[in-house]
């Protein structure tokens, strides 16, 4: 270890810290503002840290808005989407991976082609369809468009293809039905793929603004990102503290989940890069 090496390390570390500080600044500022009093936020001198930690903004955020409702909506929508995505994708993936039948390559071709289509492209006809069914402004409108996840089928098929054929033969000889094989044998073994897919799906839909902006106009149905915009547009620039407290509450679930399960989280989101 010579001194040139040490200096090099010091420079690299200093730059990395500087970059990390810049990246974390919005998070720091969000937390700082969420604990500051109104007077402190609007004072002409600016201080990095709040004078004292006070929870009034958080209380105000929950009392003056339906923040709790937004969170519950997010949970219902993300949970509903994930449930139906797996319900549709897993049996199909199992059939594509472990069964031979006519039309199999055609269906897999559809899956691959579907990966090319971003959701935005289908928005207008799906909106028309939901309007026709009188489903706009319901949870159904937020969940239904996403139940066919070609990405889910793709991931599950990759995982199930790698499983030994003998395993499924043995299960058939034991008299298990094909459905039971898919759910009781393939799914438990495909858990790593399922986890990665679940993380990808929940993060994507918890954070989505595009579709909630279109499909609902009732604030009582708004998932968190839509909800915080209702709040911001109503408060007209005076309630900065509670707004930041609401932002903290909305960002917290995904950030905490990420910090607790970093490896899985990064894997899930990196795998998402394969999707169009």
């Amino acid at each position, binding site marked *: 270890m010579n001194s040139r090496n040490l200096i090099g390390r010091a420079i690299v570390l200093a730059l990395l810290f500087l970059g990390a500080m810049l990246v974390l600044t919005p998070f720091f500022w*969000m937390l700082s503002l969420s604990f500051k009093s109104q007077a402190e936020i609007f004072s002409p001198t600016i201080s990095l840290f709040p004078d004292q930690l006070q929870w009034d903004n958080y209380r105000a955020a929950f009392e003056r808005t339906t923040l709790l409702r937004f969170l519950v909506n997010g949970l219902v929508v993300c949970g509903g989407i994930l449930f139906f995505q797996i319900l549709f994708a897993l049996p199909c993936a199992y059939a594509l991976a472990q069964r031979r039948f006519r039309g199999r390559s055609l*269906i897999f071709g559809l899956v691959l082609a579907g990966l090319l289509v971003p959701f935005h492209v289908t928005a207008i006809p799906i909106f028309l369809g939901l309007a026709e069914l009188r489903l706009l402004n319901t949870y159904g409108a937020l969940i239904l468009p996403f139940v066919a996840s070609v990405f889910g089928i793709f991931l599950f098929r990759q995982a199930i293809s790698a499983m030994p054929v003998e395993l499924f033969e043995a299960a058939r000889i034991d008299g298990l039905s094909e459905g039971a094989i898919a759910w009781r044998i393939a799914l438990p073994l495909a858990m790593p793929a399922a986890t990665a897919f679940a993380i990808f799906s929940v993060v994507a839909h918890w954070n989505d603004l595009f579709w909630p902006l279109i499909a609902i106009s009732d604030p009582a149905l708004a998932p968190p990102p839509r909800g915080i915009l209702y709040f911001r547009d109503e408060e007209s620039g005076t309630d900065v503290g509670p707004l930041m407290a609401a932002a903290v509450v909305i960002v917290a679930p995904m950030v905490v989940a990420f910090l607790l399960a970093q490896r899985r989280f*990064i894997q899930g989101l990196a795998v998402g890069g394969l999707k169009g």
Partner: protein
Amino acid sequence: MRLIDRTRAEALANLWLAGPATVAMLVLIFIPVSIVALLSFTDYQFGARSFNWVGFDNYLILIKDPQARRAITNTIVYAAIVIPLSILFGLLVALGLHSVMRYAPRLSAVLRAAYFLPVAATLVAMAVVWQMLLHPNLGLVNHLLAAADIRGPAWLSDRGLVLYTLAVIGIWQTVGYNMVLFLAGLAAIPEHLYDAAEIDGANRGWERFWTVTWPMLGPTTLFVVVVTATGAFRVFETVATLTRGGPAFASDVLVYAIYREGFVYFKAGYSSAITMVFFVFVLLFTLAKFRLMESRVHYR
């Protein structure tokens, strides 16, 4: 008789397993795509009882009308800033963290988490925070600039500046994602290549980088380019939250234009044409990505 029963049962099983997903794919993806393509040649408005075929009129407006065209040019400018810079920073951070990992693995992991945080955080909520950071009078950024005697601009309402401000937020959000892809690529480079390079006389850091690291990262880099490009062309959340395409269309982008024309002004036909243009851009990138995947060039 038994044989027929069995083949029937098998066919029924296939139908039950693959049928629902196939129908859902057709109804939710393929039929809608065909409808959008058709609607883009009409003047259909949401709620109207009829429509007329207008040929390529919607596309001509999009290309010829200087205001409408801004959605396309802004998206390209935005992508042209975000793609190279977020890749460059992602690579630099990954190289730094990879070297720190050798002597301080815990510290490296903490820093990695910090850089990845914007990827996990809800972008709309963070955009509201950026709005406060960039507020012309109350924002932290302009306060810090004022301390250095610089008059900070109105970051989000200055026509000449707004797109660049959004690009900075886009880079902030993407660097961490690119970083983890590059870290995976770096971890896959076998150590003996560096030993061999050293024997060949590549001793200095940058020599090692150009002879081993950069060529070995080639496939990862291509993949990162395509993923970042698709992401940049989809920019929507920050625009919808912070500028609504304004001021005066200075930050209008394709996906926001789809939303505004279709769901605020109800011009379904015109919005479908914008959708098709957006689709073609994304399609080009995704096809490139599939080509890369086929040549076994991807994460892991």
